[in-house]
């Protein structure tokens, strides 16, 4: 008996090889954040420095999804929470931390522009940019507009950004961050 049509879990499993200790798609609320935060500490315990960096990066990117993803889930308490994907991949010399989520096309240009600015700056310039952006009026629930900048500073590597159109109104935005071991 086969109910499933378009979803092949084995393919999905194979696409996430044994070096992917964590992958998730779904609403990202504070409870998920807490649980993953704890997992990250455990999974990466052999490299405490990388683990701390992955955790900081995770908090910023996950919070972005929770606030700004164009795909929403309504939870039991009627709270609307952003939905997205989170994945950790372990390579020989580094960890890759990736997130992906739907973004309104109206918002995508500013995200790409900001990422390009971030990747064009050296560390000192990036710190200056962060101080400048932090002075702007706060965003949603006190957002400081410096999540992506802080991610780049914490990882000390460029942001790998990809944007793919999904439909007339939405694009899929994904970001990969490299954290050296």
């Amino acid at each position, binding site marked *: 008996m086969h109910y499933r049509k378009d979803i092949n879990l084995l393919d999905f499993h194979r696409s996430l090889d044994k070096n992917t200790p964590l992958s998730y798609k779904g609403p990202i609320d*504070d409870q998920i954040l807490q649980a993953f935060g704890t997992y990250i500490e455990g999974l990466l315990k052999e490299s405490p*420095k990388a683990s*701390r960096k992955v955790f900081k990066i995770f908090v910023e990117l996950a919070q972005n999804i929770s606030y700004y993803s164009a795909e929403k889930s309504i939870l039991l308490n009627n709270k609307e929470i952003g939905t997205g994907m989170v994945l950790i991949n372990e390579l020989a010399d580094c960890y890759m931390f990736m997130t992906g989520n739907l973004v309104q096309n109206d918002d995508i240009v500013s995200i790409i522009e900001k990422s390009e600015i971030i990747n064009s700056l050296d560390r000192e310039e990036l710190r200056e940019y962060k101080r400048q952006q*932090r002075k702007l009026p706060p965003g949603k629930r*006190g957002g*400081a507009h*410096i999540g992506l900048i802080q991610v780049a*500073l*914490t990882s000390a590597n460029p942001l790998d950004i990809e944007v793919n159109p999904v439909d007339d109104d939405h694009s899929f935005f994904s970001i990969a961050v490299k954290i050296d071991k």
Partner: protein
Amino acid sequence: MENIKITGQHGVNFIPTVDFNADSGICELAGESYLEDTIEFYSPLFSWLKQYTVEIDKPITFNFKLRYFNTSSSKCIIDILNILRKYKDDDGTIEVNWFYDAEEEDIEDELEEIEDFMIETNLKINLVAN
């Protein structure tokens, strides 16, 4: 003026420990700061500090003992520092201490952040190694 005491929690959110004492003028913010609504949490702390500078008008010692804070919280730290700087500019006496753990894995990043706080607010922060 009432004191503020909040016990920190490492739960679904990371709530920092707050100890603002109007009698001694010693204010402490410790632990971890990652909140669902950062402004909602920090607004009463801003109000308290502003009220202290107007009504009590005595020296303030502000001790930061934060182990982790997210970027939204960093903006509130800047707001606190700006309130203290304004008080200093109006001839108030303040001392700001930042306690850090020299053994911490990513201590360079933390020290860099504190330097950014000083540049951004034009306020001297004393670094105290634990």
